[in-house]
């Protein structure tokens, strides 16, 4: 019952806040109000999404219990209502209980988290290797087995940033050269950097990893579906940190092969 009340209260609050805001938001036409992680399209991103939802439900329930007890106390045990203060100052039973129960919850959380981590760190048996190099401020991609290499930089014109021109749909999330990978293939990424630390992150493809000068970090991606996925550098790397996006095209294998051939002929 408490839960349903909370839900009602929450939706009422969201509705009021939303209605209030719509009035003066210039971009209301493209309003997103996204509340959750982006839709996952790889196994890793899905595992992360599920873990995220699980831990979020757990902390929401804990939060509701804590807030419930607090608001109940505030409503009930007030001097103005004639509440008399009790004298107790400890209870071994309660203290053992609220140490043991959280411990059990944590153990229950640790099991799926450990499994997920084992999956993510397993970069063996990959189908292809893609080297990603961060620099100030763009990315370099090397298809190591194919001898294809190119740079990828922000394509949004400066006039959109300074506001002299209307901002496009993919403002700050568009690059000159997309990186292309085949769907359904395990792509092993090798990450490094030329100058300072960067981090390569496309939310829908899974987590981020730092690209560090002098280091080669690893991660892997196997995209289930074709599409264009956008992300950004996620580690402060200087002045134009906000202007080094990542755009990945996931395509069918045949299309990928054709693309690789075209790239080879270019160079």
């Amino acid at each position, binding site marked *: 019952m408490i839960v349903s009340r909370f839900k009602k209260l929450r939706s009422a609050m969201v509705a009021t806040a939303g209605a209030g805001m719509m009035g003066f938001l210039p971009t209301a036409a493209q309003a997103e109000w996204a509340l959750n*992680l982006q839709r996952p399209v790889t196994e890793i991103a899905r595992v992360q999404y599920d873990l995220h939802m699980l831990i979020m439900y757990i902390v929401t329930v804990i939060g509701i219990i804590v807030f419930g007890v607090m608001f109940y106390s505030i409503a009930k045990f007030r001097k103005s209502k004639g509440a008399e203060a009790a004298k107790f100052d400890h209870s071994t039973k309660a203290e053992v209980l609220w140490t043991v129960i959280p411990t059990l919850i944590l153990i229950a959380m640790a099991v799926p988290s450990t499994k997920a981590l084992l999956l993510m760190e397993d970069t063996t048996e990959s189908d292809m290797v893609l080297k990603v190099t961060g620099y100030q401020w763009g990315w370099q991609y090397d298809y190591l087995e194919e001898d294809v290499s190119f740079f990828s930089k922000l394509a949004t014109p400066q006039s959109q940033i300074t506001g002299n021109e209307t901002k496009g749909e993919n403002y700050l999330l568009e690059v000159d050269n997309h990186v292309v990978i085949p769907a359904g293939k395990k792509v092993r990424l090798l990450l490094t950097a030329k100058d300072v630390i960067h981090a390569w992150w496309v939310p829908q493809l899974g987590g981020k990893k730092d690209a560090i000068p002098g280091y080669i970090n690893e991660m892997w991606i196997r995209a289930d579906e074709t599409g264009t996925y956008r992300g950004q550098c996620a580690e402060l790397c200087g002045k134009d940190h906000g202007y080094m996006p990542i755009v990945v095209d996931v395509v069918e294998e045949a299309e990928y092969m054709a693309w690789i051939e075209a790239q080879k002929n270019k160079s």
Partner: protein
Amino acid sequence: MTTAVADHHHDEVPKGITRWLFTTNHKDIGTLYLWFSFIMFLVGGAMALVIRAELFMPGLQVVNPHFYNQMVTVHALVMIFGAVMPGFVGFANWMLPMMVGAPDMALPRMNNWSFWLLPFATTLLIASLFVPGGGPAAGWTIYPPLSIQGGMGVDLTIFTIHILGMSSILGAINIIATILNMRAPGMTLMKMPLFVWTWVITAFLLIAAMPVLAGAVTMLLTDRHFGTAFFSAAGGGDPVMFQHIFWFFGHPEVYILILPAFGIISQVIPTFARKPLFGYSSMVFATAAIAFLSFIVWAHHMYTVGMPLSGELFFMYSTMLIAIPTGVKVFNWLATMWRGSMTFETPMLYAIATVALFTVGGLTGLMMAITPADFQYHDTYFIVAHFHYVIFCGSVLAMFSGVYYWLPKWTGHMYDETLGKVHFWLTVISFNITFFPQHFLGFAGMPRRIPDYSLQFAEFNMVSSIGGFILGFSQLILLWVVIKSIRGGKKATAEVWDNPEGLEWTVPSPAPYHTFATAPEVR
């Protein structure tokens, strides 16, 4: 009687500027710390408003990206080292001697010096914004190699950190010496008020953590100017090593910022619930457990650097463990309120808000402990929301609670309760308008530390900026309340509140210049 004469002589308060420059009185020094902290709070807050103004809409409107990065960096440094840490030392100076029944701090001259280092240090930091190349722009974490690239502003920041570290260590030594040596007869360790306990543990954390930071920034300095290559891969060094050293300081630092806050609300809640603190000894042990754990969890700030699997697992498990003692504390506060007889004066409102909103920050912290999920959360606005719930709602709201709680003891006048409540509601509501939407921004994929963002983040950023401006300007009400209470108002009694616990309430209000020249007897 000779003692009476001596007391009379001592109670002459020195006049003029020299009173403040040369003071060795713990109350004066406490006052200096608190004013300094509040000024820095406003300075850091102004920088936050620059950030929020730039983020009000997509595109670049107010500042350029390089200056934006400087604001992000200096805002954090000013708030952490200028506002929160000195604020708690101010409370320690004012209250610890009175709480343990000591006449003053153990090392009063050193006390003067620990304070007077601060204005010089922060002046260096602010001055860095005006030198060629501008201030530090690599984030408050000053990760190399990026921080190696900066101009002389980075060097000024390094010296700032050295001086501030020195001040903190001196302050911590003083606090430990006072608490361990100067307690009134009968004030055994397990009778000390919880604020005293949390501060003694914090002081040990400071002594252990600050030199580590000093070492890290010194290596940065020699890397920048003297040809060493501690953190340069090209020279055989390791940029990730800096992160390990930094966070070995940085995580205890988080608890340096929060443990004294736990202490303050553990004083406030029992007073207004009219009921003794629940689980005193478990509070003490939980504080000690948190302090210990804080030294073995540091790498959870750097899950994405590519640690070996075993490292990621270790830091995930150890981080999750912190939830247990932290939970114990929250449950103890709830149990203190349970079946109490509560009234809701401003200090109590702030204490309750601290518990409630710190819990939100604690729970999002638990989410980020889960390494695989953190690969999504890391370096997004989710973490920005998280640590503002912890540092603003944990530390700053608790300080507000403490200010309203002890202000009548400091000034001798009650503060304006209506204004206090207005300040409370404006602060708490606008804080949530500012920072709650940032959770969603982080989930949706907005990285932190960017001056400009893609259109899908526009709505929540605008909401957040509006909240930020209300939050910022609301703090001027606190200034008004404090000045009003200094200038006059209803006379406060010695007890101020309804039968509060503690030696500080046995001396008159305002507390005389010298208290407990003769040690009180503690039952």
